[in-house]
């Protein structure tokens, strides 16, 4: 069995990568991808920690739920991105700063 540490490092790395993608990429689609990465990093953690569960299943089931919800979320997010793009004629997040104070 792979040691837990390696898997956690993988999850953390994946999360960091996703986070960096989310914070640095200009394109909204890319940001969505980053979010996806971060969700999956969380999933990895869930799956890894389910090893300590006597049934081995709770974390994995939860990960399945996450994947399902993430899929739905992605669909909604894509729709929003599409609407944003139609509205602002761009998907560049730097240019969409309506919340600016």
């Amino acid at each position: 069995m792979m040691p837990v540490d390696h898997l956690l490092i993988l999850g953390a790395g994946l999360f960091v990568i996703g986070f960096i993608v989310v914070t640095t990429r200009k394109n909204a689609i890319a940001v969505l991808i980053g979010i996806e990465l971060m969700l999956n990093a969380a999933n990895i953690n869930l799956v890894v920690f389910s090893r300590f569960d006597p049934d081995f299943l709770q974390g994995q089931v939860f990960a399945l739920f996450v994947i399902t919800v993430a899929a739905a979320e992605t669909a909604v997010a894509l729709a929003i991105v599409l609407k944003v793009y139609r509205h602002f004629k761009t998907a560049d997040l730097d240019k969409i700063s309506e919340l600016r104070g």
Partner: protein
Amino acid sequence: MIELQDLISPTDYDPMINWILLLLGIPLLSFISSLFIKKNAPIWSTFLLLVNTGIAIFMAFSFWYGDSVSIKGVWFTLGDTVMSYSFYLDRLALLMIALVNLISFLVHVFSMEYMKSDRNKPRYFAYLGLFTFSMLGIVLFHNLLLMFIFWELVGFTSYLLIGFWFEKKTASLAANKAFIMNRIGDAGMLTGLMILFAQFSTFDLEAVKALMIFSEIEDGNWVAHFTNNGQEVMNSLDGRWLSAAGIALFCGAVGKSAQFPLQVWLPDAMEGPTPVSALIHAATMVAAGVFLLARVFVLLDAQALEVVAIVGAITAFMAAIAALSQFDIKKVLAYSTISQLGYMVMAIGVGAYSAGLFHLVTHAFFKAGLFLCAGIIIHQLHKLHSDEIKFNEQDIRVMGGLRLKMPVTFLCFLICSLALAGLPGFSGFLSKDAILLNATAWAEIKGGGYYIVIGLAYASVILTAIYIFRLVFLVFTRGFRLESILNKPGLMDKVKEGNLILLIPAILLAVGSISIVFGANVKAENTWFMQFITNPIYLVPESYAAFSLVDLSEATIKSLHGWVAIVSISLAVGGLVISYFLYRPISKKALIFQDAPEPRGALGRISFNHWYQDVLYEKAIVKFIVIKGKALAWFDEKILDGFVNGLAKTQVVLAHIVRWFDKYIIDGFVHLTVSTSGRIGQATRSIQSGNVQTYILSAMILLILLLLWLMI
């Protein structure tokens, strides 16, 4: 104990009130209608006055023998104090209403012609109506406060009429002078009213008299003891207030009747139209003071009466001296009026109530007559005025020889002059004789220095004869001096006798100056006047009461009478003779009179300038007041205004400081708050970049920091 409310309680309806209201109402109607319906004002108001005179004379005849009538009512109520009004008709009042109305009517008639060419006729007749109304008010009302109100009204009308030709500076100044001098006297009178009110709590004269009887002198205090609404009242004043009240009331008479030291207004009052001088400043208004003294006569104590007598004698003498050297015909008559008023006042002062009033009546006739004659002369001479001929028609230096051209006027003037001089056969003799007799009896009893008082009175007799015959000789005898002054012979032919409207009043007044009107008698005490109007008895507490002439035995009077009559007649005749030698047509003085200069000798100057009283007032009082006024003005301008201005300046400076404080401290604080929050806003808004990625980054960093903090 006497109850005050009983004394002033309203009386039952008396038909007499209608007569009284009619008497007062008609002149008032004349005033109002002349003022507002200007058309035909002279005829209309003269007619009204004729009606009023008719009523007055009718009343005098029908009520003469009846008892005196007193009508009282409530005027107004102030808290518990009831102010009553009251009318009182006794023989004196009846006589006065007849006299006032008659002379007023004659003056109205005379004025119709005299004021014919004046534009302001309606105003003039309105004032005459108002005057008659107010004068009748004084006579009819028997309440000191109401009398005072009418007294003031009379003074005010006199002011209006003296200043009738107010375009003339001298006239308006004379009006002011008369008014101010009267005010000084009235202030005194008001004081007297207040003293009596303080003591008796009422202004009603009858009530005051009744309460005066019951007042007493206790330990030098004057105590009035009575009940008011059932409550016992005890008013006590120092005994000297009793004299003070009398003297204060006399002050009113001093002002109105032109007594020393306030008499200076009367000569100046001659600036008014001559008929006005006849009515107001000779016959009636100036006699109001004497009338008032007669009304309060019984309330005067010995000391007050003494003051009255002395002031009267001084006035009589001073004015008689002044009348000797005047050039203005009206001025001579004015001083003569003052002098005769002095006689009346002196008569009251010595206790000769009826003699004083008798002189008031006789004087009213002959002095009004003299003034009207002077008016005729002035009026007729005025007609000579043309572009080349200009002169002062009141100056006796331009007159002379008018006897030939104005025989009727001359005759009237002569009769009135004889009456004024006090020669037997004329009314003035009777009244003056009565006064002198009483004054002599008074001096006999008092003795000592009081002989000086009657000495002045006797001296005035001779002076009176001198000055009035000086006038007669200079105005009516020798040639017309204006001819030689202007070098225009034949000017005299242009002088004409006045017409009937002018002459009839003068003739009637002259007839009234003949003694037969008062009874075919040489002795004053046998005239109907002295029979009907007798000396009353003093009501003041006994220790303060003056010696009463009523107590004088008939034998004493008889023994004095012959002597007094001889002395006064010989003095009057002596005056006539002196005057004849000085001013007869061929005398030295009459020859050069046309360019007679103002007298130069010390005595002459004193006479011409009326004892320099005006100058004294000018130098001492007026100057003092002006200096005081200037000082006050300086004080006002520099100190008070300075203070106010300083206050204002301080305010402005303070305001500037406050403004600075507002601007820099308070506004600064507000601005600071604003800019601080602005800066904070500016600072914080940069965080709100609107970039979601930044938000996430910062959230994450904070989360990590939180985790780190939790772990440590």
